[in-house]
């Protein structure tokens, strides 16, 4: 979800990059080194963009938080973002953040980074978890062999950070050297002789090139003449064709051997059978039947907290009691006495008044809903439940030609589709990314809308909620199924790391919730005010009545809703949650029957995505895609809504 960026571009002469595997605590350490908060959550792939912050302890130096890399040479989009940093940034130091309990994996990357010839420090994080699992590392021996400072840390408790800062001053270019098989060494020296100088050593650039790293490729393309580039390409191709193993594999195998020897020296693993409550619950959550029961409980708690507590009790308190009876009458009277011209006063406090509609919607309706949602969501993110949900839902996503990993951007989409579109970077290929984006645009309501939907449906009955859920899921499955068949390419099977379940740290959840709320209000209030102003003008010019009349056959005839609902759908063009809010108020005034509530909620959920996300899709996937998605989604929403109405009436539901 939206990161909290320091908006100014930092102009510094040198920088420190935090690099490491996914989900090892890079963003926590970033926060401690800079004071800037970036989203921290317990699943791999939280950070998908670079974030810069001024280092508190080093003058004129930026710290860069990067997306986690599983493999280098990079393979996925987010890994490429990180690889790019190695080429583009004037790096003074690399801090590798590593997971102490998975030493082997960590060292694999350490060796690679050490080859780059940039001063390196290794922060061995998660020491607490390593200790619990009986993993102990002989740090002195490790330092001796690597000739790199190794600092044990527990980032979430701030342990070891001071030592880390101290060691950053002392880092030197690592001298660790790996001898590769002759075939590779020959290739390295051949490639090296063609390379210009770059930020990283020629040897490591050559190794990345041989491993077909896309960032290295594009850097080289820009920095050497095309003839040389072609020569290098031919050389590499030839290398691939001779011998069983590709150069990339040979390189990796050599490194693995070195790591194995090192690990055998420094690692002690005692007490193999670590079983805490977290482990037990973590396994329970992915079992076929018990896992689904747990999921149902989680969903119900979410529904209760957001739908009934947030959208019901809190909204009622704020909207009816605080705003309806106290603030708004006061403000209205005040404005009418200050501004005696009715039409101007109406602009602020009339039916479509900036205050009585725009601000009241934003503060009394949306705010309590998104607050409860972001809070619940933050807890869920930090617990490590989301990757387990991916396992549980894998079969469902299979129908849509995807794997369970797609649940991550989809769930994030509940917070903000715009940011979720960025998170699709964690999907393995272009096809998967596009599929997820289509589903995001179609069926994923954002949190405010979801809260309103849940609140409205909850006030009808639980069965109304179930009908809504089933319809949305069926639509999503069918569209996904179709899209997967139309789009070229193959489905990639699930391959996902399950981080340990962790007890959410309340301070992190709170900071995250506040940061998200601030961002949300900043984005929502201007749009709500704009929407209100447009409605005001349309009403005063009579355009609104015309539009309502024009859409009468569709809204009243086809969907069977009161004519006034057209206004809500008009608002929905700006933001779906804005439209939902309009419907919410209609229901509160008793203008909607149960069938009408369900039908309108289904339609507004499937309604076109908000303006911001249409832009985002346009930027990342091209405008044609963006328009095509919009053009399909809009009629589909009304089609499904209308059909549902006929079905519900036919079976006599809700009467």
């Amino acid at each position, binding site marked *: 979800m939206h990161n909290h960026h320091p908006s100014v571009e930092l102009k510094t002469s040198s920088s420190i990059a935090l690099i490491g595997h996914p989900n090892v605590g890079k963003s926590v350490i970033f926060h401690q080194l800079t004071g800037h908060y970036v989203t921290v959550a317990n699943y791999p792939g939280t950070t998908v963009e670079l974030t810069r912050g001024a280092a508190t302890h080093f003058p004129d130096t930026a710290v860069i938080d990067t997306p986690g890399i*599983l*493999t280098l040479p990079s*393979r996925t989009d987010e890994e490429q973002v990180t690889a790019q940093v190695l080429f583009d940034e004037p790096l003074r130091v690399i801090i590798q953040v590593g997971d102490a*309990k*998975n*030493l*082997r*994996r960590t060292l*694999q990357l350490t060796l690679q980074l050490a080859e780059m010839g940039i001063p390196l420090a290794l922060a061995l994080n998660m020491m607490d*978890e*390593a200790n619990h*699992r009986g*993993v102990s590392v002989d740090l002195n021996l490790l330092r001796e062999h690597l000739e790199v400072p190794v600092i044990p840390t527990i980032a979430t408790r701030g342990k070891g950070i001071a030592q880390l800062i101290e060691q950053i001053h002392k880092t030197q270019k690592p001298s660790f050297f790996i001898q590769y098989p002759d075939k590779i060494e020959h290739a390295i020296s051949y490639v090296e002789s063609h390379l210009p100088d770059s930020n990283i050593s020629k040897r490591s650039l050559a190794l990345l090139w041989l491993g077909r790293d896309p960032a290295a490729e594009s850097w080289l393309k820009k920095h050497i003449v095309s003839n040389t580039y072609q020569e290098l390409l031919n050389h590499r191709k030839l290398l691939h064709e001779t011998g069983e193993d590709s150069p*990339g594999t040979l390189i*990796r195998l050599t490194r*693995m051997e070195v790591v194995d020897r090192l690990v055998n020296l420094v690692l002690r693993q005692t007490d193999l059978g670590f079983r805490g409550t977290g482990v037990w619950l*973590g*396994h329970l959550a*992915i*079992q*076929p039947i018990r*896992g689904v029961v747990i999921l149902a409980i989680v969903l119900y708690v979410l529904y209760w907290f957001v739908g009934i507590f947030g959208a019901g009790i809190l909204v009622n308190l704020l909207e009816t009691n605080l705003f309806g009876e106290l603030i708004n009458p006061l403000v209205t009277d005040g404005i009418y006495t200050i501004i005696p011209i009715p039409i101007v006063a109406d602009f602020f406090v009339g039916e479509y008044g900036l205050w009585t509609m725009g601000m009241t919607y934003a503060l009394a309706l949306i705010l309590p809903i998104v607050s409860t949602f972001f809070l619940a969501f933050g807890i869920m993110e930090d617990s490590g439940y989301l*990757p387990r949900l*991916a*396992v*549980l839902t*894998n*079969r469902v996503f299979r129908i849509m030609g995807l*794997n*369970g990993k797609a649940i991550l951007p989809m769930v994030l989409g509940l917070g903000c589709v715009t940011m979720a579109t960025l998170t699709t970077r964690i999907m*393995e290929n272009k096809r998967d990314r596009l599929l997820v984006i289509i589903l995001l645009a179609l069926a994923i309501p954002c949190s405010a809308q979801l809260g309103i939907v849940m609140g409205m449906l909850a006030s009808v009955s639980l069965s109304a909620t179930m009908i809504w859920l089933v319809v949305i899921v069926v639509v999503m499955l069918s569209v996904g199924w179709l899209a997967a068949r139309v789009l070229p390419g193959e489905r*990639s*099977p*699930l*391959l*996902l*790391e*399950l981080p*340990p379940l962790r007890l959410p740290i309340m301070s992190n959840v709170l900071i995250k919730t506040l940061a998200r709320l601030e961002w949300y209000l900043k984005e929502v209030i201007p749009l709500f005010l704009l929407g209100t102003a447009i409605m005001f003008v349309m009403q005063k010019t009579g355009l609104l009545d015309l539009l309502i009349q024009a859409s009468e056959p569709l809204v009243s005839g086809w969907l069977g809703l009161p004519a006034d609902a057209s206004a809500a759908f008009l608002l929905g063009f700006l933001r779906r949650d804005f439209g939902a809010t309009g419907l919410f108020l209609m229901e509160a005034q008793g203008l909607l029957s149960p069938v009408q509530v369900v039908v309108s909620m289904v339609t507004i959920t499937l309604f076109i995505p908000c303006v911001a996300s249409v832009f985002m899709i346009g930027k990342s996937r091209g405008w044609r895609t963006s328009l095509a998605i919009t053009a399909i989604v809009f009629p589909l929403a009304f089609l499904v809504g209308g059909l549902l109405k006929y079905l519900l009436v036919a079976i006599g539901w809700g009467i």
Partner: protein
Amino acid sequence: MSQQPEADAPTDLTIADLAPGMEAKVISLQAVQEVRRERLLAYGVAPGRTIQVLQRSPATILKVDQTELAIENDVASRITVTEPNRMKRAFHHGQRRRKRRFRRGLKFLQRRKRNKR
């Protein structure tokens, strides 16, 4: 106690043939598609390394070092392993199933060999 299998002796077993609780050494990932193979290797599912199967459904859950990985059965059935060396649970629970899987695994391997030709 089960007999210690000869280290890395070629078998036709894959991870998909292992029942929950079993441990085995990885022999080869050659049959896995390259992108995925690289990622598995990065996680530590590499030849010679010991993996434990924690669960088989709805996906295969593996443990390597302190990492838990969820992989689809399709991928699991492409990773060959040695005879498993922790059979206790298998004898209690899944002996027959294991045999069936074993046979299925054999068939799968034969089919693949045929396809390769």
